[in-house]
């Protein structure tokens, strides 16, 4: 499992003596974790959720954005289990590369014109608009056969998976086991597609914060002296900034039309902004903990040894110290992902989360909350999204506790 493997990978880089110790440590922890029944169940649950989310396009589900208003607010149904669905227009799919190739040549032409306009400064706006239009047209052409069926914008891999799904299961799809929403879209498939975004958001944002936090903390701790002082002061200052407010402020400002347009041109959409901003918030605690670890580690024998072998500073930090921080990092990872996912749900509630036709669990839960009125409760619309979100976060929390206990019981109060 990831825990053991990555620790080993780190261990190889260390001096033999320490690496043996490291391995035994991680094996020990793994053994302890395996004894923890709740944590193991959680681990299995999380891994299966992740695999399912990854394989979603391959599963025989209905398309997540396929509206059938005739079936508005249909209650969960199990029979018949299979429903027919519209087939993928393979002819259109096979034609696409040709059309795209043609459009690409036009695009290069427009790009050239844009460059010219940039130099002369004339008609810049117009040239840019045309360029963007063409780019959008290419995207539309590629997505057209999938969009017809009600899929959101898909990446290359997902498109291949959707094609494979139609080859495998043909026109069969599972009936709406979790009911349907206002537009008659199938909640079950929306939950699966939502899982992809929610998990991705949680994971990527956490990793961003991890990268910042670990590096910052490690550098600060290793350098010591006034650098350490200054860097930690900075962290102290940031602690007092009400980040949720700043994030909302930022998201609304960056959502302003002209700015969003500009950002979109650089391939930055709201989710990317979210990754960066959240990553930029959650690294604070990480950097503090890592710094503490580094300070205690840097006087250990193997670091002294490396130093005496005239290893460069950065080599010592990145190859010798960082791998030893894995336990802290793992604990932090499992505890931060749920927080980030909750934060995304929170932003969805305010209408600042992912944008349709993309879905996330937070968005679904919010749609469910909106249709809760005392007059009629469409219970499936709130129950299933909360269940999905709640169960995943519960599992992550339990796993986080388990990993923490297993790796280092002393960290419990961290």
């Amino acid at each position, binding site marked *: 499992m990831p825990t053991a493997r990555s620790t080993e990978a780190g261990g190889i880089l260390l001096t033999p003596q320490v690496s043996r110790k490291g391995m035994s440590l991680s094996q020990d922890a793994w053994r302890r974790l395996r004894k923890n029944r709740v944590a193991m169940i959680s681990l299995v649950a999380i891994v299966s959720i992740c695999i399912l989310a990854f394989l979603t396009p391959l599963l025989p589900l209905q398309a997540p954005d396929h509206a059938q208003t005739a079936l508005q607010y249909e209650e969960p149904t199990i029979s018949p289990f299979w429903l027919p669905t519209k087939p993928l227009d393979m002819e259109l799919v096979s034609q696409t590369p040709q059309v795209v190739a043609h459009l690409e040549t036009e695009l290069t032409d427009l790009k050239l014109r844009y460059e010219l306009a940039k130099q002369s400064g004339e008609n810049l706006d117009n040239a840019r608009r045309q360029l963007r239009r063409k780019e959008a047209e290419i995207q539309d052409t590629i997505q057209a056969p999938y969009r017809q069926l009600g899929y959101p914008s898909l990446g290359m891999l997902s498109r291949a998976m959707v094609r494979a799904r139609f080859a495998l299961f043909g026109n069969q799809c599972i009936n709406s086991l979790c009911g349907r929403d206002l537009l008659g879209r199938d909640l079950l498939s929306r939950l699966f597609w939502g899982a992809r975004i929610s998990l991705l958001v949680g994971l990527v944002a956490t990793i961003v914060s991890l990268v910042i936090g670990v590096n910052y903390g490690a550098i600060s701790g290793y350098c010591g002296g006034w650098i350490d002082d200054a860097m930690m*002061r900075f962290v*102290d*200052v940031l*602690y*007092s*900034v*009400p980040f*949720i*407010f*700043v994030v*909302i*402020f*930022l998201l*609304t*400002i960056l959502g*302003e039309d*002209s*700015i969003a347009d500009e950002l979109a041109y650089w391939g930055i959409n709201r989710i990317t902004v979210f990754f960066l901003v959240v990553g930029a918030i959650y690294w604070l605690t990480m950097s503090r903990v890592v710094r503490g670890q580094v300070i205690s580690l840097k006087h250990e024998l193997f670091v002294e040894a490396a130093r005496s072998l005239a290893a460069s500073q950065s080599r010592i930090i990145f190859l010798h110290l960082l791998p030893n921080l894995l336990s802290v990092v793992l604990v932090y990872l499992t505890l931060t992902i*749920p927080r980030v996912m*909750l934060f995304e*749900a*929170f932003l969805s*509630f*305010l*209408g600042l989360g992912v944008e349709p036709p993309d879905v996330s669990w*937070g968005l679904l*839960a*919010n749609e469910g*909350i909106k249709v*809760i009125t*005392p007059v009629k*409760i469409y219970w499936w619309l*709130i129950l299933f999204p*909360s269940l999905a*979100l*709640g169960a995943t*976060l*519960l599992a992550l*929390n*339990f796993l986080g506790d388990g990993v923490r206990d297993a790796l280092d019981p002393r960290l*419990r*109060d961290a």
Partner: protein
Amino acid sequence: MTSFMVRRLLWMAITLLVVYTVSFFLMRSVPGGPFDRERVLEPEIMKNIEKRYNLDKPLYQQYLIELGKVVRGDLGYSYKINDYTVNEVIAEGLPISVALGSLALIFATTLGLVAGVTSAVLRGTWGDVLLMLIATLGIALPNFVIAGICIILFVFLLPLFPAAGWGDFNQLVLPAFCLGAPYAAYIARIARTSMLDILSQDHIRTARAKGVGPLRLILVHALRGALLPVVSFLGPAVAGILTGSLVVEQIFAIPGLGSHFVQAALQKDYTLAMGLVLLYTLLLYVMNWLVDLSYALLDPRVELE
């Protein structure tokens, strides 16, 4: 002690300045402004307004002028609500948010402590598992979901509390509970852990051997030790409750700062939003500072650096 205070104040000023500067320039980078009307204004009128609000000056001068005002405590006019200044909005909203937050904090600590201690005492039984499951669920569910469920349960199925609004104590209970719930859950978990630690320590065993009754044992001997970790969680809890009120105030239509901020941000009322960001920075700083101070008072071993 004094130098500690002075240093803290200095850092606070710097933080506020940074937050202000960043938001000011972000705000000004957005097209449109306070005087965007549905009507097209006469050029003379537009120019006059720009002069009046110094918008015709270079950006750095505007920055300095505005900064001067903020330092004097004048946060300017709301872009969207003509009849109010930002200061007036804050003056109306702050007490409401503070009251809501205080009650939420009381809920969080009492419920959390009771649940945590009970769970530790009942260790290994179904009661323990159930309590901890509820606690973890409290952490795992977004609080707008918790609030929605609470409204259905306690407003309609069991008509105990009003659905929304502000004015009397009854209207405060449900929102304060929803706001405090996740923190009650955290506190329950922390209290349980530290309680278990203490129950296994020698002096408790000795006390038990001496024949101290179980209730007295828990309340007098064990609880004391279990409190400190809880107190140290209060800092983050206060910060969380302050910001968590964004959602809860929305759902329960409470006219506190959280609602004001969300509405201001969504309606692009940038002056109001910026004023509130500054205020929250200040509040958070003061809170952190108070928590640090209270450590020193509670635990003589901690010294203020």
